């Protein structure tokens, strides 16, 4: 903990001095999420308060610093379903990176960044964004060990046409065992093709994990937002020697269109199916030890001022035991300038 405080302190100091060198309009932002989540999983109740602060600092038009920490509490009964409640808190750094935005085709990032395998980790794994509170079962595939990488990454849009865009990321990461900043030794990337007029994207990912005997993970994903219906369809498939599986999620907003949000239009219904097939389990792969299927259904209500209420029910089927999972929560996304005062 004191180590991460040091890093964060150094980073802040650096940000303050660096920002002073650049333009007035480069106001940094402090953003993030506060969430409270309650869960009942196979009869065991637990509560998870979460704070996820984000600091983002523009340094002129080409440099950018972004960082996100996560302070997560876990409050549960000592013996699962009996005994007194006690809690523990863990703090992690999800990313702390310096981006050099060369042009639309190329951004170079160094530091700690979210491992870009498929899309869940980079795009949906923020508490206020995810439509269902639990990450997909296959999430650890391609994002070992911590979902974050310590190294360097290039990304951008390789080809941009009116009808389609090809986007890519490629990275390498070093092994880091430092508490709160862990990452695996790995290299990989993702390529996607996006059709703006159709709201459709499809892509594929690859990771070579360069420790524990070297493993290859591969994946594919698709996203579809039909332009005239407020429907979001997302899906991922991932394969590794430890196991493979997929998830498919569909979310519908009860509104005429995405911008028209009033009354019932603030309500969203979500359904997700998942199938996981066990491979050769390995210590630290964070995957289930048996084939697992899961179905989730959830309702989200988007209140004004970036507050969201959510409730969901899930059923998990596995030879190790079936379970009902009920979850409910409240999420607030905040955003404000990190320095007070001053006009643009």
């Amino acid at each position, binding site marked *: 903990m004191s*180590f991460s405080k*040091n*890093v964060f302190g*150094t*980073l802040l100091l*650096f940000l303050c*001095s*660096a920002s002073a*060198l*650049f*333009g007035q*309009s*480069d*106001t940094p*932002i402090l*953003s993030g999420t506060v969430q409270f989540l309650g869960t009942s999983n196979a009869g065991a109740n637990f509560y998870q308060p979460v704070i996820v602060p984000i600091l*983002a600092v*523009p*340094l*002129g*038009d*080409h*440099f*950018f610093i*972004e960082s996100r920490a996560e302070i997560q509490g876990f409050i549960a009964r000592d013996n699962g379903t009996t005994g007194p409640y006690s809690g523990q808190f863990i703090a992690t750094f999800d990313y702390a990176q*310096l981006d*050099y*935005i060369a*042009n*639309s085709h190329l*951004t170079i*990032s*160094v*530091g700690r960044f979210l491992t870009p395998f498929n899309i869940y980790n*980079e*795009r*949906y794994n*923020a508490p*206020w*964004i995810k439509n269902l509170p639990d990450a997909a079962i296959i999430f650890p595939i391609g994002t070992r060990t911590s979902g974050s990488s310590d190294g360097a990454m290039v*990304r*951008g*849009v390789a080809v941009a046409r009116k009808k389609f865009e090809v986007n890519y990321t490629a990275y390498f990461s070093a092994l*880091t065992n*430092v508490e709160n900043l862990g990452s695996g030794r790995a290299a990989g990337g993702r390529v996607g093709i996006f059709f*703006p007029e159709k*709201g459709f994207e499809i892509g594929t990912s690859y990771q070579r994990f360069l420790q524990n005997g070297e493993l290859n993970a591969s994946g594919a994903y698709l*996203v579809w*937002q039909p332009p005239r219906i407020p429907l979001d369809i997302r899906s991922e498939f991932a394969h590794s020697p430890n196991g493979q599986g997929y998830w498919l999620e569909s979310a519908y907003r009860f509104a005429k269109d*995405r*911008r028209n949000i009033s009354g019932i239009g603030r309500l969203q219904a979500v359904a997700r199916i998942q199938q996981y097939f066990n491979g050769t389990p390995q210590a630290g792969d964070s995957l289930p030890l048996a084939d697992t299927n899961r179905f989730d259904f959830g309702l989200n209500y*988007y209140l004004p*001022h*970036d507050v969201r209420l959510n409730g969901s029910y899930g059923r998990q089927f596995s030879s190790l035991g079936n379970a009902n999972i009920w979850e409910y929560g409240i999420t607030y996304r905040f*955003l*404000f*300038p990190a320095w007070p005062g*001053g*006009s*643009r």
Partner: protein
Amino acid sequence: MKGRVTAFLATAALLACGLSPVASPQNPAPAQKSATVTRTTAQQSKEGERRFQANCGRCHNAPEAISPREVKAVLQHMRVRAMLSAEDEQLILKFLAP
């Protein structure tokens, strides 16, 4: 490790200061003359709105409001995350903070 991180941050700071061109003032749009200028700006703002609609609800609920002081940081963040083009960034910026 701590030394390495500090060294990395220091190098990054040096790089950031040394390499970057002087930050260009935003929107140096001359507020003078001719209807053409106004029309172009109106068109740009319309195009900015279109691109906002097309891009900003793809991954999450499109934000209801972003204050002008926050816009640049948000758009740069999204530019890196969502791989927006420089043109998208400029047009959406004009729409959100005219």
